[in-house]
């Protein structure tokens, strides 16, 4: 059997789509990106920048709180991947379903959840979004149709498939967004779910957050192909690649994908190329990555890209940017205070939520 050409092998892994230093210059935008920019407008882009900044700052604060031992267990940070989560989740409707892995802070905040209950969850407090029973890996929100953060690699994929099944069963036009990592792509759960989604034409959007590593194992060392969209072919499914560091691209892709699937349910595999700025979890110094590699992605920092774009468009001056950022930082500080001051869960309630 002829193996399709590895386009990525030759080009190398470039999340910047050849645009260089990570500065998105309006003049250098593609036509598609210009359209997206127009569609979002100043308000839309500002709101997305606010969310991205919120995620970044929320996680910086949670890192600090972890060092102060206010947070325990695992803490997997999303930093670096903000454009992906905010771009895609900003393109769906309020009734669509979302499920993800343990790297769930970004998804939760991008869905518009308040930072207070999320921080309180990290602090293991009764006021946490999952009442202190879940922690960092298990944010859930019934109100947002957020089916959770899940700790078993790939284990959330069939859950998202089930949500897509419900959408189709009820014919109410929702889609189900299923986020997972490049490592999770190699789980049987993905392959079983992909086959079923295609077979039954379910509106499941499988999103590989390809941050190049599953813990310390690079995609080169874990995947039989480097173009991960090739995995869609065997399931007769559409597969597309997107620059996960580019907010506009992520938004545009998801907007279109969702709209067409509401009309005509079928699955999609998205490979979003991104990078995590921190280690796998807070305890991982990530020595398996070369400094130059990390720096090359830091130059593509999605926050810098979007802030730069806002400035270039004349939609945000230095002063306004500082105000917006200060406001978010204050909100996050308030969230930390809320978490700190909230009561611990009462051990008398240990047996609550075991059975409905």
């Amino acid at each position, binding site marked *: 059997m002829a193996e399709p050409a590895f386009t990525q092998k030759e080009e190398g892994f470039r999340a910047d789509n050849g645009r260089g230093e990570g500065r998105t210059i309006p003049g250098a935008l593609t036509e598609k990106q210009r359209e997206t920019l127009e569609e979002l407008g100043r308000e839309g882009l500002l709101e997305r920048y606010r969310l991205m900044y919120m995620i970044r700052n929320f996680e910086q604060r949670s890192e600090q709180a972890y060092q102060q031992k206010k947070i325990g267990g695992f803490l997997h940070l999303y930093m670096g991947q903000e454009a992906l989560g905010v771009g895609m989740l900003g393109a769906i409707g309020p009734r669509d379903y979302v499920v993800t892995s343990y790297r769930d802070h970004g998804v939760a905040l991008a869905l518009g959840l308040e930072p207070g209950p999320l921080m309180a969850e990290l602090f293991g407090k009764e006021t946490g979004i999952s009442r*202190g029973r879940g922690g960092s890996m298990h944010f859930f929100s019934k109100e947002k149709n957020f089916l*959770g953060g899940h700790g078993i690699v790939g*284990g959330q994929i069939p*859950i998202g498939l*089930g949500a897509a099944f*419900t959408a189709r069963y009820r014919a109410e036009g929702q889609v189900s967004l299923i986020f997972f990592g490049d490592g999770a792509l190699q789980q049987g759960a993905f392959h079983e779910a992909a086959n079923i989604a295609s077979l039954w034409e379910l509106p499941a959007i499988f999103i590989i957050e390809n941050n190049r590593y599953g813990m310390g194992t690079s995609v080169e060392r874990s995947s039989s192909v480097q173009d991960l969209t090739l995995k869609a072919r065997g399931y007769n499914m559409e597969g597309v690649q997107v620059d996960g560091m580019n907010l506009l691209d992520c938004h545009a892709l998801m907007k279109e994908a969702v709209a067409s699937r509401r009309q005509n349910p079928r699955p999609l595999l998205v490979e979003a190329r991104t990078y995590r700025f921190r280690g796998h979890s807070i305890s991982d110094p990530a020595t398996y990555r070369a400094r130059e590699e990390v720096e090359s992605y830091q130059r593509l920092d999605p926050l810098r890209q979007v802030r730069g774009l806002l400035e270039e468009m004349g939609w945000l001056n230095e002063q306004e940017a500082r105000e917006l950022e200060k406001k978010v930082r204050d909100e996050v500080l308030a969230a930390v205070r809320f978490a700190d001051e909230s009561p611990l869960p009462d051990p008398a309630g240990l047996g609550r939520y*075991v059975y409905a």
Partner: protein
Amino acid sequence: METNHAPRPEETGSRPSAVGAMVEMTMREALNQAMVEEMERDENVFLIGEEVGSYNGAYKVSQGMLERFGSRRVVDAPISENAFTGLGVGAAMTGLRPIVEFMSFNFSLVAFDQIISNAAKTLYMSGGQFNVPMVMRGAGGPAAQVAAQHSHSLEGLFAHFPGLKVVMPSTPADAKGLLKTSIRDDNPVVFIENELLYGVSGPVPAGELLLPLGQAVIRSEGSDVTIIAHSRMNHVLRMALEEFSREGISVELIDPRTIKPLDVETLARSVRKTHRAVIVEEGHRFAGVGAQIADDLYTACFDYLDAPIARVTHTENPTPYASNLEQASLPSVAEVVKAARAVLYRG
């Protein structure tokens, strides 16, 4: 933790709600009726599994259901247990009430992650936000000479995990009443049928039949020894009660019917009367269901016991193919008689 044990029926106020006429039917028919009635009643209930539709079920439990409900609600799945069980979890979290059929529970092992990590734990991890109203059902227990990989008794495994309920009927009436209740339950329920009992007939009350989970039933009253057995072993012992009377042993045979929640009170009440107990199961001895029941009984009525509790189980080896070896591995009536004699010190 009290949640492991059943509330008393007085507390739940539930009672078998059927009165009047009885209809003779097989376990297979009773299960079919339960699903059909619940799917007629509630549009959110659907059946998914391998061969449940056009093949009419590997064991014909879903006979005629595809024709009746169509492929939207009777869904033939590819051989992907992990995905279709997880699909059930996701569907349940988003408002449907799936019945996931395992062709046999032996194959639930490839979906174990979905059952344990997701079905059992989502309500808890989400701080009460997402419950998982889902039934996972199918044939379980050793069948006849199907060898080690097809002869698991997994109830102990499932019952170990808080969040799951585990139901194992041994009569057609219980099968129907308990399955209907399980489908209406707001929690994930593991409902283990027994392949060798599918064809067994029995009277089933006509009309609506709902039996509460967590209520044991006394199959035959007696005064010398309490014998506790579930699923097929209860059936086998029920058929063999005469052997005990021939030995001059008055047996109180109890069927827990649900492994979790476990009706410890009914079991303990009986043991307080007979002062002796034998626990029988087709699963292995080590960390088996009987170990839990014995522990509950020692805790509840230690002072009433006149002999250590005896257990009759599968031996500690994988189930072999050769018929004589298989029989030597599984609990037999003769062994139960022997155990009953032993706890009565009739050696």
